[in-house]
């Protein structure tokens, strides 16, 4: 029991004194996952909107693939990114294995299907006649798509949150392609795994609290979005 209590006290001490090691890890986590989420937004929102609006043969298959991708196991992603970036792998010449860049790539691959799937659902959930109404107000196709995306902005924000939440708490791929190098590619999750295995529960708990706070913040925003009503 003492172990836990002492750990929590030490954790809060580390947090409130802005321990440089903890801060550095947190900042890198936010940078890597933030960048990965941003990349996944660019790809996911465009792709999701296209699939939602277009009619083409095999659309069902594409939708089911996207939905499967939303549950992509991070270790599988980590495995394939590692193989591709391996010294004599197809992309080995880039020399970015065990760098934050590799982590961003892996996390973007994990987040993109999540953002795509939620964007697809968000645009599809808009009233069917809304597209016609926008065109009937004189919009070009491009203006129509832009207005639709703006109309779906809240559920899309939910996609952003879900994507970010998914990658910031992910450990498998990050440790495989990032290597958990101190001061270079060590993020909240990989650090927690390492400190726990070493028995440094105080730091592990401090990092855990930060992760929990992030998760809470994300869910707070998500709940707020989901409770909001659409106009008639």
């Amino acid at each position, binding site marked *: 029991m003492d172990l836990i209590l002492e750990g929590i006290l030490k954790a809060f001490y580390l947090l409130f004194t802005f321990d440089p090691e903890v801060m550095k890890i947190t900042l890198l986590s936010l940078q890597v996952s933030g960048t990965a989420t941003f990349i996944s937004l660019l790809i996911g929102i465009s792709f999701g909107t296209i699939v939602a609006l277009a009619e083409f043969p095999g659309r069902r298959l594409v939708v089911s693939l996207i939905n499967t991708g939303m549950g992509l196991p991070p270790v599988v992603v980590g495995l394939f990114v590692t193989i591709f970036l391996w010294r004599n792998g197809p992309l080995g010449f880039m020399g970015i294995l065990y760098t934050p860049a590799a982590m961003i790539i892996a996390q973007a691959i994990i987040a993109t299907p999540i953002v795509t799937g939620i964007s697809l659902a968000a645009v599809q959930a808009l009233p069917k006649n809304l597209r016609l109404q926008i*065109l*009937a107000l004189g919009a070009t196709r491009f203006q129509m798509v832009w207005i639709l995306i703006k109309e779906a902005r809240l559920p899309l924000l939910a996609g952003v949150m879900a994507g970010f939440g998914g990658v910031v708490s992910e450990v498998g791929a990050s440790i495989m392609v990032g290597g958990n190098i101190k001061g270079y590619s060590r993020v909240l999750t990989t650090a927690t795994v390492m400190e726990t295995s070493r028995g440094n529960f105080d730091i592990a708990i401090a990092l855990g609290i930060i992760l929990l706070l992030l998760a809470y913040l994300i869910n707070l925003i998500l709940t707020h979005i989901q409770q909001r009503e659409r*106009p008639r």
Partner: protein
Amino acid sequence: MSVPPPLLAVKDLQVRKGGTPVLEIPSLTVEEGTILSLIGPNGAGKTTLLQTLASLIKLERGEIFLRGEKVTSNHGLLRYRRKLAMVFQEPLLFDMTVFQNVASGLKIRGMGSGEMEKRVMENLERFGIPHLVKRSAHKLSGGEAQRVALARALAIQPEILLLDEPFSSLDPPTRESLIEDLEKILRQTGTTTIFATHDRMEALRLSDRVAVMNQGRILQIGPPAEVMNQPIDEFVASFVGVEAILTGRVVKKDGGSFVASIMGREVEAVGDVELGESVVFCIRPENVTLAAHSFKESSSARNVFQGKILKVVPLGLYYKVQLYCGFPLVAYVTSHSLENLALKEGKEVVASFKATSIHVVRKRIKT
């Protein structure tokens, strides 16, 4: 001398859905400043016709002309679409403020903010909702939302306004006040309007011409009274109803009752109208009584007219008697009274109906 082309003309229009034709309109014209209503049951093709005219549905075949100019594909289509506005059954407002909603069509056209603000406020005032300008669209009631949707469409100052049953999801009092306001606005602005409805009273009240549709075709088109009094076939007859529809003008007013002149005959009815106003009377056949002779002690609230029977149509348990007594009238009689009165074509009879049994529809005040 050349006659200016109609505002909108349609030729040989055909639309298919999944291979089967859902709309076939050999020809249709709409004159500037008039209101055409499309009536028909669900699935008659009213919505398809409106969406086709709004160029939201691909034509299988056919041509659309605006002021005599053919609407061509691609660039011409957008230019054409920007001259129209359409309001759907649902308000379909954007998740923004009322101001932004009403401004959206103008913003799409790249209008400057000064003029845009003027135009938005002008249209909110028209619909009596300037106080809602800053309200979020999702905090509006159904009636308010539909008013905003109409203001958004009219803000564009469309050459043609297309309305697809815009009142059908509203409760009766809300619907009534909105129809009244819209009628005023459309007449003031002289906006050419095509209006789909399944409520023939709405059609009668708002429109200059009525087109009855079924299975993707226009069965009959003409002035409301003509379509309703002389339906060309059984379907039109069953859909537009069986009443005699009479148009007249209020000539006398006395408390709750008034007298309207209908084709030279004076008919008394009950209702709140204004002198000189145009009214439409709907007289249901079951409220018309036929007799061989005029009875002396008829009450003053009863309209009595001498007339001649044009046609007797058997309808199972009773007969439909069409007669002419200075204006067309229809009565139902039982087979018993048919025999008693010896009713047949060409026979002179006396028809009577109570002032209170007339359904009065107020038309706009003629200026």
